[in-house]
């Protein structure tokens, strides 16, 4: 299960709208208690793909490293990633599967004619054979309050 608040979800949708018709991407940072991940903040990342950004995104190792360091500064960890599928359903493609990182949550937002539509979250199966959709709970409250509540 993945939890995030309305503000985070809104920012993801906004990012997806801003980059349309190209894909957006970013990193989810937060905490994991073994049963569920809680997203405390999102880090927007510039799609580093040099071509075909309408159908591909890339978060470079340098950007990943930056995100992990940023998470550590906040006392949290990388929980996963988000990206958009312009004019394509919010489910993983074969290309997503071929490049997927284990354990992490993958939020995919579909964008239809410039407007955000479905939002789903996925986790890679342990044998890397496919993605499994996970429950996505959207909560009220600010990022930091959510994290403090979680710590408490």
């Amino acid at each position, binding site marked *: 299960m993945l939890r995030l608040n309305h503000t985070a979800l809104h920012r993801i949708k906004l990012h997806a709208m801003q980059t349309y018709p190209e894909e957006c991407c970013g990193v989810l940072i937060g905490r994991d208690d073994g049963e569920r991940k809680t997203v405390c903040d999102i880090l927007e990342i510039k799609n580093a793909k040099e071509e075909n950004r309408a159908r591909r995104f890339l978060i470079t190792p340098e950007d990943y490293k930056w995100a992990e360091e940023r998470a550590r500064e906040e006392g949290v960890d990388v929980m996963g990633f988000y990206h958009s599928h312009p004019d394509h359903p919010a489910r993983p493609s074969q*290309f997503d599967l071929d490049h997927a990182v284990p354990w992490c949550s993958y939020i995919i937002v579909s964008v239809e004619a410039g407007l955000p539509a479905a939002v789903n979250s996925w986790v890679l199966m342990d044998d890397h054979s496919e993605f499994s959709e996970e429950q996505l709970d959207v909560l009220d409250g600010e990022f930091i309050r959510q994290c403090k509540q979680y710590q408490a």
Partner: protein
Amino acid sequence: MGVKVMIPTPLRAYTDRKDSVVVDGATVGELLDRLTVNYATLKKHLYSDDGKLRNFVNVYVNDEDIRYLQHEQTKVSEKDVVSIIPSIAGGGVE
């Protein structure tokens, strides 16, 4: 000889939550072999069925990508720090 290997968050679920481990080896390949012996469940996440490092896996010796060195034959010493750093790629259907 022990060489420090930095583990990214997504793979710590398979290294007992450790963010770094020290393993023996004279090359990057030997380090990764030893790592996957010590943490057996890590192997299927680092390597695909054909025995190649998975697409998301990038390995650095200090700040150098091993693709620009001697790949998994890159020699290492205990002064080096080896980092496994993911790159995240994906996208919709072409």
